[in-house]
């Protein structure tokens, strides 16, 4: 590049005259312009910012932020009912778990065998559909970690098995047709619901009629339709769709039994019923038409508890089997429901006809004419804590321990407590009752039972430990004295326990 200095004369070259340079203000346009208008005719660009916006009269001057737009996550929301179905899904098998060789099944023989105490017995495969139908399995019970569903044969189970045998009339004839009424309590995780499941399984094995209320809360939470029964005093309410669901459950689970029994009583309210129809046909009437579901259930109940046929219907009469009634979450029935009467007063759960029917079975002397078992379990985790239930249960326990009602040790409700008189009255014993109400409290497993249970985990490949006396003893103590729900947590937690114990 040429310097502006002349090297020969070392004088500065004259600068180019200014007049020859283009004016610096106007840009040089080297190519054809897109706009034909000169740039300097254009409007000056507006200033950004809100200095020009006028604040309105009495407008708040606090900071205004732009609302964030919710990011579209893409895809559609789950379909109606999909999330609930996922929540309520019950998985009964885990193909990754090892199959246990020589695993025994629950059967009329094994369920009373005290040599098998502490072993885990598989539930018979054909029965699983029936158990599903009565909603015996609950979503969070951990069935999904084993190859096939099975339950421990613990002391309470064997005792219950013997009860089933007695009531069915095997062995002692005097016990046949007995009614046993039990309220099952116990700590959280002590196996109350699984105890009911075992009862249902035994009921199916013994060909009993199994009627269950898997969740007592559903009846009182205000989620199903209700209607007043006109003319009842005190006013009672039916729950048609809940009754319809009960009939569906009952028929699905007891189809074989109900199909083999014929109608033996007269039901003037159900005109569509023929004398030759089976109890299955009877129950099916209430499936689709919730309006008649309650009368249909009442008719089914009279049929199941019938001891002799009505006149003219003797031809096909078969003796009715014993009945198992299992209710889970009893405490929900001991308080006011979420329903309201027409006067906007809360309806007590005992005023719902469905609930009243099942609770009155506890009260009456021989509520099941052909014998049977009433098992009403409380729940420790889903407990509305109704006023008066705990004192009523304490009284039951005291009575079982031989404390008379006049004794000063007999539990009394605390002064000024508003214990529900209806609850206290319901669980009050009748004088010289034929079949008194019992309280059964489930505790922990014994160490031997706990060992059998933990071995089941080990043999399923879930627990990598050497199961010996010391190890079981440690876990038994850790689980609060063999509370089975806690034992299960210890058994399925592979990592930390394994490293700690080494």
């Amino acid at each position, binding site marked *: 590049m040429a310097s502006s200095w002349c090297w020969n004369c070392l004088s500065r070259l004259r600068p180019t005259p200014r007049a020859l340079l283009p004016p610096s203000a106007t840009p040089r346009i080297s190519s054809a312009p897109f706009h034909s208008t000169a740039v300097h005719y254009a409007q000056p660009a507006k200033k950004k910012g809100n200095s020009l916006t006028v604040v309105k009269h009495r407008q708040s001057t606090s900071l205004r932020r732009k609302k964030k737009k919710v990011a579209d996550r893409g895809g559609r929301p789950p379909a109606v009912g999909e999330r609930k179905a996922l929540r309520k899904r019950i998985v009964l098998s885990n193909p990754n778990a090892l199959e246990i060789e020589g695993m025994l099944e629950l059967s009329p023989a094994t369920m009373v065998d005290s040599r098998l105490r502490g072993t885990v017995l598989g539930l018979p495969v054909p029965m699983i559909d029936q158990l599903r139908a009565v909603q015996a399995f609950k979503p969070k019970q951990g069935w999904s970690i084993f190859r096939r569903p099975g339950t421990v044969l613990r002391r309470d189970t064997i005792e219950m098995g013997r009860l089933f045998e007695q009531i069915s009339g095997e062995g002692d004839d005097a016990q046949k047709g007995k009614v046993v009424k039990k309220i099952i309590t116990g700590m959280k995780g002590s196996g109350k619901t699984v105890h009911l499941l075992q009862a249902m399984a035994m009921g199916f094995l013994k060909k009993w009629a199994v009627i269950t209320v898997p969740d007592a809360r559903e009846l009182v939470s205000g*989620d199903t339709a209700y209607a007043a029964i006109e003319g009842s005093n005190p006013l009672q309410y039916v729950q048609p769709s809940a009754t319809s669901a009960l009939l569906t459950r009952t028929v699905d689970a007891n189809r074989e039994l109900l199909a083999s029994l014929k109608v033996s009583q007269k039901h003037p309210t159900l005109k569509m019923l023929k004398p030759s129809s089976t109890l299955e046909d009877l129950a099916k009437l209430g499936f689709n038409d919730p309006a008649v579901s309650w009368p249909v259930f009442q008719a089914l109940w009279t049929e199941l508890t019938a001891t002799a046929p009505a006149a003219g219907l003797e031809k096909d009469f078969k003796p009715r089997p014993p009945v198992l009634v299992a209710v889970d979450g009893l405490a929900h029935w001991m308080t006011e429901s979420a329903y309201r009467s027409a006067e906007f007063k809360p309806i007590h759960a005992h005023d719902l006809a469905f609930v009243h029917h099942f609770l009155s079975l506890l009260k009456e002397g021989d509520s099941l004419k052909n014998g049977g078992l009433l098992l009403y379990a409380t729940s420790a985790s889903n407990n509305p804590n109704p006023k008066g239930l705990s004192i009523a249960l304490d009284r039951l326990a005291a009575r079982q321990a031989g404390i008379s009602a006049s004794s000063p040790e007999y539990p009394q409700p605390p002064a000024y407590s508003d214990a529900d008189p209806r609850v206290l009255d319901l669980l009050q014993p009748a004088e010289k009752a034929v079949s008194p109400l019992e309280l059964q409290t489930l505790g922990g497993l014994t160490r031997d039972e706990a060992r059998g249970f933990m071995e089941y985990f080990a043999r399923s490949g879930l627990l990598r430990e050497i199961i010996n006396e010391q190890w079981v003893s440690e876990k038994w103590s850790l689980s609060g004295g063999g509370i089975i729900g806690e034992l299960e947590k210890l058994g399925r937690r592979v990592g930390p326990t394994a490293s700690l114990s080494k």
Partner: protein
Amino acid sequence: MKFRHQTTCGKTFGLTEDFLPEFNEKQQVTAPNDCQDTSQPTHFKMVFILGVNFPERNLLKKSLQTFFGIGGNSSARLMSRFNIHPTCRVGELANKQVLDLTAVLSEMKIENDLRREVLNDIKRMKETGTYRGRRHALGLPVRGQRTRTQIKTPVKLNRMERRL
């Protein structure tokens, strides 16, 4: 309320144009034949309660509460009066229950009747020159709240031409 204004095809309540201009714009009376909302897919069944169509999957309690003047308490009372459970969907109602509800709702002072009453009350207070009337007119809180901060709602609502 948004949904109701989109699909409403019911009657208006005979308000004059200058009295409540805004509702009249929203609740134009249309010919009965135009009532079908063609933007909805046909598989949506609708239930007609007091001149308003509700999709049947909606909760009845929420649907009742879309009426001006019906809140949580009145809707719960209404439903228990006809033995309708709290989580009932609109589609689960029997025909008779729909008719009963409509009959009771039509006797209640709700929607524009109630709006008119409230506006008349405010107007009366303004005309008699009470303190509350003045506060309404000035766009200031009426019930003794502080005015240093947090008066967005009265600023928004309390005008000379009050709207609801």
